[in-house]
């Protein structure tokens, strides 16, 4: 039963979060074949070399870097806010059946609302700016975090809550020292689901509203028939998502080192 602290296995676990280099090979092969077969400059399927020149062109105008930074900022800030909101609401809903019942219908209603549908409303209230972008991203991406947190809170073992009561913890201390840490694996799972959602929503809002960001560049490229650039931006977005996901997996592995491996939801 007794098990010593795994030191090396932890490093191994961290490295396991990294994608295998072999996994990229088929992708590279497809790109090479594409490049070779595509001789003429097709407007629908431009060869990868045209993607590259499209990106270089975009960078040369000085628009690419600010757009990337703007999108990245929305994604990261949105992620932080969505996590804070999701955990806070999730804890309140999970802890009190009365809150759950009172807020239930409203939450179900909000959750059922497709994010693009709230864009016009958000523009009406907040105008075309960064705040509007963030609001939509946060409101739509917090659901998986909220729901994961709430259901994990409801599943906390009653004995653990008895321990908190018996040691005279205040309401705030119960949340901070018992409830949140005991559901940490579920919170991180929620964040993990929310991360790609945040990326999608950020781009979507940028595409719909042309507020500064990679999404706005994409819609501009499409309107100007710069298909090479469009493909290039698509690859860039893919790399973005890939990179953020990998970084998050590592952070998750580091945090969850302290939790029983069994308790970590897949």
């Amino acid at each position: 039963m007794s098990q010593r602290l795994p030191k090396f296995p932890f490093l191994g676990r961290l490295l396991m979060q990294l994608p295998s280099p072999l996994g990229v090979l088929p992708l590279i092969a497809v790109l090479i074949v594409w490049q070779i077969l595509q001789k003429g400059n097709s407007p629908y399927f431009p060869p990868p070399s045209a993607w590259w020149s499209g990106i270089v062109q975009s960078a040369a105008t000085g628009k690419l870097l600010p757009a990337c930074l703007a999108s990245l900022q929305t994604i990261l800030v949105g992620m932080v806010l969505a996590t804070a909101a999701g955990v806070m609401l999730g804890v309140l809903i999970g802890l009190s059946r009365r809150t759950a019942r009172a807020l239930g219908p409203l939450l179900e209603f909000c959750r059922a609302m497709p994010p693009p549908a709230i864009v016009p409303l958000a523009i009406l209230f907040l105008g075309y700016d960064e705040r509007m972008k963030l609001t939509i991203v946060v409101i739509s991406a917090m659901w998986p975090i909220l729901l994961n947190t709430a259901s994990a809170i409801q599943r906390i073992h009653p004995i653990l809550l008895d321990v908190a009561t018996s040691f005279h913890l205040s309401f705030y201390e119960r949340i901070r020292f018992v409830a949140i840490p005991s559901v940490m694996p579920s919170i991180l799972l929620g964040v993990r689901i929310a991360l790609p959602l945040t990326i999608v929503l950020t781009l979507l809002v940028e595409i719909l509203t042309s507020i500064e960001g990679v999404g706005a560049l994409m819609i501009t490229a499409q309107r100007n028939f710069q298909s090479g650039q469009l493909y290039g931006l698509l690859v860039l977005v893919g790399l973005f998502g890939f990179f953020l996901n990998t970084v998050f997996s590592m952070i998750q592995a580091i945090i969850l080192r302290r939790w029983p491996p069994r308790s970590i939801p897949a």
Partner: protein
Amino acid sequence: MSDPVFECRSASVTLSLSGGARPIISDINLDIQQAEFLSIVGPSGTGKTTLLRMLGGLLHPTSGEVRVNGAILTGPPEGVVIVFQDYANALLQWRTVAANVAFGIERKLPAKECTDRVNAALDLVGLSRRAEDYPWQLSGGMQQRVQIARALALRPAVMLMDEPFAALDAMTKAGLQDELLRLRDQTRTSFVFITHDIEEAVYLGDRVAVLKGSPGRIEDIVKIELPSLRDQISTRQMPEFLAYRYGLHKAIGHG
């Protein structure tokens, strides 16, 4: 004799379950003195845990009353600590052993004193070398010792223990039994100690209460008049010890 620490006056607990109200324990009359070691034995399902939760202020008696130091119990009383039967769920699995032991005192004491108490408590249960491990890396018996250390670090006036040694091997169990008795003599802590092991109840107890029936009632309270300095070998061989053991087995209904 001074005033009792705990007094139960015809206390009963009835739970309202889906199938209707169900009496769990009924008409409990019990006094617990300072520095007294009270063992409670009884078949499983008779409400021993429920009784302990009531004393710990986690459950209100539906009728009758419970007093701590003369005042009616309204919630978990100061200076009373529970060691739960279900140790795996009673520990904060994401905290190291040392941080678990500090859980009851870290918000009340300066860091230095906290560390000293944690170290002392871990030393007492023989887990100093596992201080930086996590509970899920320990065996069941070790986890239970972490929970006991967490209770001890609080330096409580009363310790309520629910079958605390059930997961321990015989050697460790004997060592901890003597440690509890020594603590009682040194610190005048009172113990309410639930066990299903009648020998253990007699060896440790100044009195042994027998809980029986459904709803559980206190069938009998036996005063154990053995020499107060108990010894694992000689005490257990005394004719009086064997007589108590026999009598309690009969009282519980083991023929």
